[in-house]
């Protein structure tokens, strides 16, 4: 974790109303997680306790406290995708990905008429079947 970068992120948002979530997002983007050091620095800068910052960080599914070194594919597992076969596909994808790629559940990507759907980074993929999803997993 780069302390200068961390300070820059905190300084960028420090004066905003309710700065904590924007800071956590930027820290997660820059470092891949919000770890102990980041929590301490953020708490100090915003005049909060470490427990408070940790409590917020752990509440939200988006934030991690340790980085994920493997590539991540988010596969939608919500009802509209279930209706289009996402559950069977998810099982298949997890077998295919093994431990190399993380198949993470996401609950709706707002593409509910063209599922099953996935997101890699900010790239979206619709109408997935084994062939298409398999190619995505292999390319990661």
């Amino acid at each position, binding site marked *: 974790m780069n302390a200068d970068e961390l300070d820059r992120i905190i300084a960028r948002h420090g004066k*905003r*109303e*309710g*700065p*904590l*979530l*924007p800071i*956590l*997002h930027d820290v997660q983007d820059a470092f891949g997680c919000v770890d102990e050091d980041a929590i301490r620095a953020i708490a100090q800068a*915003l005049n909060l306790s470490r427990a408070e910052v940790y*409590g*917020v960080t752990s*509440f*939200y*599914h*988006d*934030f991690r406290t340790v980085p994920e070194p493997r590539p991540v594919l988010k596969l939608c597992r*919500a*009802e*509209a*995708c*279930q*209706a*289009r076969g996402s559950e069977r596909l998810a099982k298949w994808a997890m077998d295919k990905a093994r431990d190399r790629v993380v198949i993470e559940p*996401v*609950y*709706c*990507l*707002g*593409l*509910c*008429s*063209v*599922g099953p*759907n996935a*997101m890699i980074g*900010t790239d*979206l*993929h*619709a*109408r997935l079947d084994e062939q298409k999803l398999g190619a995505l997993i292999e390319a990661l």
Partner: protein
Amino acid sequence: MRILISDDALALACGADAVAEAFAYAAPNAEIVRVSSWGMHWLEPLVEIDGIGYGPMTPTDVEAIIQCHSRESGNPDDAGARSDAQLDPRFHGDDIERLSIGRIADHPFITAQTRLTFARAGRTRPLDLADYEATGGWKGLRAAQAMTPVQIVEAVTASGLRGRGGAGFPAGIKWKTVLEAQGTRKYIVCNADEGDSGTFADRMLMEGDPYVLIEGMAIAGLATGARKGFIYIRSEYPHAITKIQAAIERSRAIVAPFDIEVRVGAGAYVCGEETSLLNSLEGKRGEVRAKPPLPAHKGLFGCPTVINNVLTLAAVPFVLAEGPEAYANYGMGRSRGTMPIQLAGNIKHGGLFETAFGVTLGELVDEIGGGTESGRPVRAVQVGGPLGAYFPRALFDTPFDYEAFAARDGLIGHGGVVVFDESVDMARQAKFAMEFCAIESCGKCTPCRLGSTRGAETIDRIIAGEHVAANIALVEDLCETMKSGSLCALGGFTPYPVLSALHHFPEDFR
């Protein structure tokens, strides 16, 4: 040749960028314009060439469409770089017939709609201020600028507009409360957390017509005396976030002194609940607050706050521009105006269908939606997201109306309609409803936090055939406890999908 291709996230997910690139390569003289989506999702990527629609397109179809289109138009120049060459005989009318849907504006899926909120869908460039202005943009804001706050609030009240986020609370009454609340600082908060499965209208609106939301928020500011607005967008919508941010920058001078900021959620469904959302905006855990105090009295940072869904705010410019009667003339009973309904799941013609309240569920699913995509019979339809009931065919005569759905133990919520074919296992759907509640619970109430986990386990036992009758009774009991012992609708309404599955599809619980 003018080629329109959507840059909506759903079109992109279906490969619209690759199609656009193929057109740029095959027809270098053509003007390629990226517009919003018409909302006919089964046809995406949908391409419009001189008014005629082709879809769903793949890059390999591009050459054929250009050749055939230029032959039809009699203008070989349309074929761009190949204008000097003979039209390739390999391409013929079959490709056009396969992909052409004729004039898009005349397509039955479009002509059957009443598009007030989505009037620009498919027709304009989302971030182009000239397009917005030329299609009546800012007319509502200008009208509001000539009115007193009380007059604006009265117009919104008279329109009958109710909150589109789920609860259906009258927007005018909420605004009036904030207008009358004492406070030097007030806020307008737009709820763009759109977490319900089967819904995407907020996303489409933010990506396709962002200025109409900004205009609606600025009007809400004038009506209540708020000078600052926040749009809280879920992190699963990166494209909407980018579009809205760009639109805010470009329209800053037009809505000044009103100022809008985007805030990004962090993957918590419960943060769509208004008080949880406010906590999240303040940088806290997204726990639900007890009411009272209402957000209208003590909302964001303790100040009077209007919190409305994207579609609620986006309906307001029409109300101010055309007058409240023009809006209230549509609809039935106490559900006035139009609802952007979202047809999703296993449905042949999925997409966005905006229509006056009153259309029946059966019309939506069978006629407009064309039944299932799989071609197998429709078995169940979940309306209103993960907290909405599962409806069997027997209830297909239910009209889309807040009260009519409530009378049948359902809800229209944010207008999502998710279709399942006969392969669905309703016991598994009931179990998922409980699991989802357990995953997303904010943790404040025991029936929601623990009851949901217990519920999922009990349904598992039913699926395994253990003490079925006793376990069904246990699930029903648990549902009653969740209904009465939950602070918000996550715990309080999860029983709806569970009990509706149990009552309408008992054969799946044996």
